[in-house]
């Protein structure tokens, strides 16, 4: 009996296998290096351009002449090579891939560590480096070591102000920053089935923060319905009675608003314990929490109020942005005094659009709070969208009353 990774990769844990990939994507950062490596390999023609995507999301629109020139070269290559292309403004690679591209059972590789996000569809999705990506461009295939699997058994339902991000921080804290290195995570149990696709994507997204290769959900009727909205047919996956390396049990009813404090993702406190921490910036967005459900949740809390601290909101994709405009969610966010930046990774990696100054403190809905990541000397706290919204209104870390 197989884990989902073993089933998709077709070999038992521990085996090394060469596999064709279904989808491979890179972004404006890693794509530049992959293109260089491909040139050095001497490869001219790509055997499977239809499987490949270049998605501009990291520094969009370009912030300097150097960035713009690098992006222009890569844009030209995308067009001449036949690689599928999503230009600046289309959104974050993982989000774009979640909007009717990735389906259950696929093998997906991305030149970005958060590619594990797409495990939410019951796909084997994992991150790699740029040279590995160049080899995938050149051959359509790569090698994998089939991972052992840790089950995260979710029971019950989230209640009160707790949301999927709090659950994500809870499991990262339980496993630790290297607790699942080289393992796959499988989110199972009735609590997994009760989560929306947006919520599942948030959980899968943070798998890499435990060192995991991917974080998977079994495709179920919720997955099938979500993909049907994008015109894709998909079937549910049935879990088998397989052997997990270990199982972590989490009762969703126990989850309360949580905050990861500087500078480790697995140093997690109840929001209550750090309430009152002064903030210089609030950032809502990223591949963790920039989806429509997140923006709508944020808007519900700030509607009719004013934020007391500079607040940057970045929709994860153009699709998310368009929906937020159509439903009035965006107007609520702008009326509350927030800045809205173009779809992309925004200030998450400290490259542009919301970089922190020395000693500044940011509450962010992203997935990493490494030292100096958003700017030298800046401090990053990670929270849910509801906590970010309540804190933006108060100007200090505040426990939300509702999700």
């Amino acid at each position, binding site marked *: 009996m197989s884990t989902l990774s073993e089933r998709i990769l077709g070999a038992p844990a521990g085996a*090394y296998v060469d596999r064709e990939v279904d989808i491979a994507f890179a972004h404006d*950062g*890693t794509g*530049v*290096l992959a293109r*260089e*490596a491909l040139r*050095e*390999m*001497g490869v001219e023609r790509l055997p499977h351009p239809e499987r490949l995507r270049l998605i501009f999301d990291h*520094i969009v629109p370009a912030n*300097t002449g*150097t*960035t713009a020139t*690098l992006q222009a070269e890569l844009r030209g290559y995308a067009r001449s090579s036949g690689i599928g292309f999503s230009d600046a403004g289309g959104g974050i690679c993982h989000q774009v891939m979640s909007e009717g591209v990735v389906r259950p059972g696929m093998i997906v590789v991305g*030149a*970005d*560590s958060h590619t594990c996000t797409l495990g939410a569809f019951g796909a084997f999705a994992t*991150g*790699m*480096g*740029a*040279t*590995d990506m*160049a*080899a995938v461009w*050149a051959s359509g295939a790569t*090698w994998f*070591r089939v991972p052992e699997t840790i089950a995260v058994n979710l029971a019950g339902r989230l209640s009160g102000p707790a949301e999927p991000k709090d659950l994500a921080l809870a499991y990262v804290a339980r496993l630790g*920053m*290297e607790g699942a*290195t*080289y393992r796959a995570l499988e989110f199972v149990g009735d609590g997994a089935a009760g989560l929306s696709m947006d919520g599942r994507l948030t959980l899968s997204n943070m798998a890499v923060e435990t*060192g995991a*290769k991917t974080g998977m959900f079994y495709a179920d009727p919720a997955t099938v319905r979500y993909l049907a909205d994008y015109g894709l047919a998909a079937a549910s996956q049935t879990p088998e009675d397989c052997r997990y390396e270990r199982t972590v049990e989490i009762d969703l009813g126990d989850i309360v608003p949580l905050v990861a404090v500087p500078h*480790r993702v697995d140093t997690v406190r109840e929001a209550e314990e750090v309430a009152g921490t002064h903030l210089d910036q609030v950032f809502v967005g990223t591949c963790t929490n920039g989806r429509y459900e997140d923006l709508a949740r944020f808007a519900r809390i700030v509607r009719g109020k004013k934020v007391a601290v500079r607040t940057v909101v970045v929709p994860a994709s153009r699709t998310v942005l368009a929906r937020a405009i159509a439903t009035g969610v965006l107007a609520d966010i702008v009326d509350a005094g927030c800045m809205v930046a173009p779809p992309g990774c925004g200030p998450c*990696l*400290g*490259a542009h659009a919301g970089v922190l100054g020395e000693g500044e403190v940011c509450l962010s809905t992203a997935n*990493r709070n*490494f*030292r*100096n*990541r958003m700017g*030298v000397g800046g401090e990053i706290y990670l929270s849910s969208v509801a906590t970010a919204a309540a804190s933006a209104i108060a100007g200090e870390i505040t426990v939300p009353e509702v999700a």
Partner: protein
Amino acid sequence: MQGAGPAICLGSDIDTDVIIAGRYLRTKDRSVWAEHAFEDLDPALAPRLSGSIIVAGRNMGCGSSREQAVVALREAGVVGVVAESFARIFFRNAVNVGLPVIEAAVPCTEGARVAFDLDAGWVEVDGERYPARPLSEKMVAILRAGGLVPYWRSWR
């Protein structure tokens, strides 16, 4: 595959943002990454990297998949990276750019004489020998070729 050099001791959970900060990623000039390696951890570290062996604790190279991190170390002249455990993308990236990575739990004092033999599977610190975890056959072949690009060229 062998190497030797003085130890530079780092702790556990060294993330790739610390190895090379996001603000230096937008260039194709590899010397920029070498020059600014570990800048936010210790600005005095980069000039000492040439000829050294980095000895880290657990979860070396966690975080972002940025390959600039391993290229920075290679370009700076790091001979190899020894760590008790590695984050998987960093590990694979290192092999792909021809930077030897050795999984072994060893003690570290700054400047200690470190040597490794990947084929024989050991690391020595000041003459004391410790076992290293073997690499897969394919990873050894890629490292021996000098990285994935030369490996690829030799196979096509």
